[in-house]
């Protein structure tokens, strides 16, 4: 058994190493012919003198190739801006397409083989490493041994390394996608499998890696918590929604010439839902497009209040949502790193509600422009002042770079806790109008602290449990882990009558105070 695990680990590390090595594996040569096919006619004359020095030159690294190309384009643009020839400034993103075309090497000649070596071998290795745990780690039960002795789980060098790699990946993904062209090419076989006429993009790569992580780490979660049906069902649910709703269905829709649409995502997490281009796409895509529009609005306008009323925000955050799905699977090894201090709670409330307000204002501005056709409010462009900053600071930096990159440093729900506007909205409903609460069991709490430690949302669950008070908190995503790890059976996630939800703290067992002389 142990041998299987170590072989699995070796295979997985091999695949991971190969994936990282592939970043460096290609060479990039821009030929004049390639230039002519990739660049629009009207840009060719402008650009040619600047990039001519690159023709025929072979670069060993995507970064230097992309930088040369981009600075050539920038030089043209600088000149045109200086001449105030605004209409000649090049806004097209050529870096991705030209780099892809200029790539040569194993990644192009042996794409499928490499894909198998990285992802098929990698997942086999991961499963060989994970599955024997069902036997080796002893009978089903809480498996938190050694977590705070482990450098990956406790912000040691491994945690910092993984965090750094993730942060770099996200920065490349959002801002320098041409750098990771090799990886984008690597997943092209899957793209072709789902949609033969498609070509993988950085977002397809991201979706694929995301789903891969949710599924593989979901298996880990299923083994780790196999004694708890709540955790098992919940994990299967997020794995299912990620694989089908988030990954496959949108791609299949595209194959069927329908708009790309994730039926489980919703505004304001899906912040471009009300963008003009998106509304135009939906309204011009026939019946299905209109259905998508109505569905998307109904989901947040009716679905949220109704479902949160009955089940709490958990129905979304820890059963359906993609961000939640990643947090609950790939992020599970890091849940104990969330900050439980009162100060963190204060920061959280300001930040997350601030983002919600920002999202609402941004959307209002965007809709204003859509309906009135005017791009400015009080002279300020809704795009430059609202939509763009939101996309950059919230959409990319907060939800991606910080939200996931900081898993090994600040826990697995950084985004959900501090940044997600949808979580803020769900949370307000949960706090004020819901049947959901976590009940505490009489006087049984021994203040051990397991619940607070393993609460990914940084809720100091013990504070409530040890005084016998229901836990009714806007941020609770209902992951149920506090209840799972409690060694005294004190906590239970329940949907019950709203009466008594905010009852006075009560610890059963002491009748003394009733007998005063």
């Amino acid at each position, binding site marked *: 058994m142990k041998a299987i695990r170590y072989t699995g680990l070796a295979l997985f590390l091999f695949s991971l190493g190969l994936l990282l090595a592939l970043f460096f594996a290609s060479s990039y040569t821009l030929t004049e012919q390639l230039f002519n096919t990739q660049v629009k006619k009207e840009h060719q004359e402008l650009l040619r003198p600047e990039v001519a020095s690159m023709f025929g030159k072979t670069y060993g690294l995507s970064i230097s190739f992309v930088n040369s190309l981009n600075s050539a384009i920038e030089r043209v643009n600088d000149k045109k801006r200086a001449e105030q020839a605004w209409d000649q400034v090049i806004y097209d993103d050529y870096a991705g397409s030209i780099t892809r075309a200029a790539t040569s090497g194993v990644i192009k000649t042996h794409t499928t083989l490499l894909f198998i070596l990285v992802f098929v071998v990698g997942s086999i290795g991961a499963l060989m490493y994970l599955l024997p745990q069902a036997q080796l780690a002893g009978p089903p039960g809480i498996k*938190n041994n050694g977590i705070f002795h482990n450098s990956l789980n406790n912000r040691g060098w491994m945690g910092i390394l993984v965090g750094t790699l993730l942060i770099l990946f996200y920065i490349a993904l959002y801002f320098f996608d041409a750098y990771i062209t090799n990886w984008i090419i690597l997943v092209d076989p899957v793209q072709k499998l789902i949609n033969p006429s498609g070509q993988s993009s950085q977002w397809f790569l991201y979706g694929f890696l995301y789903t891969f992580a949710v599924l593989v780490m979901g298996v880990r979660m299923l083994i780790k918590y196999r004694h708890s049906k709540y955790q098992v069902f919940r994990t299967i649910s997020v794995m299912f929604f990620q694989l089908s709703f988030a990954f496959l269905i949108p791609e299949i829709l595209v194959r069927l010439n329908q708009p790309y649409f994730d039926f489980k995502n919703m505004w304001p997490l899906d912040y471009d839902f009300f963008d003009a281009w998106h509304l135009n796409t939906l309204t011009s895509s026939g019946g299905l497009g209109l259905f998508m529009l109505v569905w998307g609005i109904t989901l947040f306008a009716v679905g949220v209040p109704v479902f949160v009323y009955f089940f709490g925000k958990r129905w979304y955050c820890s059963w359906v949502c993609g961000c939640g799905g990643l947090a609950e699977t790939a992020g599970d090894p890091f849940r104990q790193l969330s900050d439980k201090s009162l100060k963190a709670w204060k920061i959280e409330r300001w930040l997350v509600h601030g983002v919600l307000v920002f999202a609402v204002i941004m959307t209002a501005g965007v809709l204003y422009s859509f309906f009135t056709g005017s791009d400015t409010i009080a002279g300020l462009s809704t795009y430059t002042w609202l939509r763009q900053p939101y996309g950059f600071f919230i959409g990319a930096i907060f939800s991606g770079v910080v939200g996931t990159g900081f898993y090994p440093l600040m826990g697995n729900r950084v985004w959900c806790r501090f940044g997600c506007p949808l979580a803020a909205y769900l949370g307000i409903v949960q706090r004020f109008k819901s049947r959901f609460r976590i009940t505490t069991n009489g006087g049984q709490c*021994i203040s051990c602290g397991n619940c607070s430690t393993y609460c990914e949302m940084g809720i100091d669950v013990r504070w409530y449990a040890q005084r016998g008070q229901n836990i009714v908190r806007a941020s609770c995503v209902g992951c149920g882990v506090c209840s799972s790890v409690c060694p005294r059976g004190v906590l239970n996630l329940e949907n019950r009558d709203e009466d008594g939800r905010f009852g006075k703290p009560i610890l059963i*067992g002491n009748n003394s105070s009733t007998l005063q002389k």
Partner: protein
Amino acid sequence: MKKIVILGNGIAGITAARHIRKNADHHITVISGESDHFFSRTALMYIYMGHMKYEHTKPYEDWFWEKNKINLKRAWIDRIDFDQKVLHAGEERISYDALILATGSQPNKFGWPGQDLQGVQSLYHLQDLELMEQNTRNIRRAVIVGGGLIGVEMAEMLHSRNIPVTYLIREEHFWGNMLPKEEATLIDNHLREHGIDLRSQTELKAILDDGNGQVKGIETKDGETIDCEFVGLTVGVHPNIALVKDSPVETDKGILVDDYLQTNIEDIFAIGDCAQLRTPQSHRRAIEAVWYAGRMMGETVASTLAGKPTAYRPGIWFNSAKFFDIEYQNYGQVPAECPEDCDDFYWQCIDGKKCLKIIYEKDSFKVRGVNLFGIRSRHEVWDNWLSQEKTLQEIIADLPKANFDPEFFKQWEGEIQKKYNEEFPNHPISIRKPGILKRLFA
């Protein structure tokens, strides 16, 4: 405004301090030599096992004390001058108007040869944990002596670091002096499932020296020797009364207190593990070394000191524990031996990891208490049932109401009710199984 000094920052002392602060304006100082801040003693095992760090076991953040005007003082008190009302900590003097003794327990040692060798220890204080860290580094086997709650925790701790454990128990079964046989056997089996080498009816005779003052093994009363580099002594605790033993404060096993938790000296109180009630209620013991009793005594004495003299009246007994993966809850009286005038109703799940035992009076069928293993149950519901003296039949019929397991868990009440109907065909109950929908929309 009185100057109240509390000796001991455990659950008893700290609860007293917090509740005095809530209700009165007294000057409060809490003294302890063990740690700067209140931490959860019950969580010690989790630090060693790597589930938590020491920081996580502190139930209140460090700013809490200053904000609530509770002065914390780290010092060992070596003498109390009752005439002058002063505590001596080395050269330092701390005066009081009222003193609350909450000094906790000390682990028992029974004078075994070799009990002071290196590698032999108990587990009670924070410092024991650091010691255990050193004592268990690179060892090949550990022996634990004493089948109680701390013993099994120690076994789990060592097991978490893959250290083979031999576990000596004097009784026939684990925790045999507290648990009825069926439940004890269930835990025996679970310990063995985890690979614990459980030796029942085995007593320690001596701990063996390797010649350098280090333990090299133990010898049992049957003459067997077991090689080991670590011996955990977990044969119970006794009240820590060292400070007042030869003083005007009356003691027996613990510090004797009246219904108001006051000692024989006015303005001196004792609470928590160190206290011994002169006249306990019939359903409670004079010394109860558990977390909950310490907390309740703290609440009660605080009420008295805040000007509302309050007698200590603990309600229905309850307790809980966890043995490796099996959770245990207890409400009411379930002694190891079923009392003469009672019978028991027992159900065990086929997986051998869940069971329920109810003790009821033979004549009236009134229920005295329940043990639950592997099923979470509602304290509030049981507290009501037991204080209203419900009968076995009433309780079994309503059993689903007490279920506290998470959603989607299999519900065993139906099986338990079936078992009841088989045993009591004369007054059967209808079997009720709430469906999952009912639970989701309860």
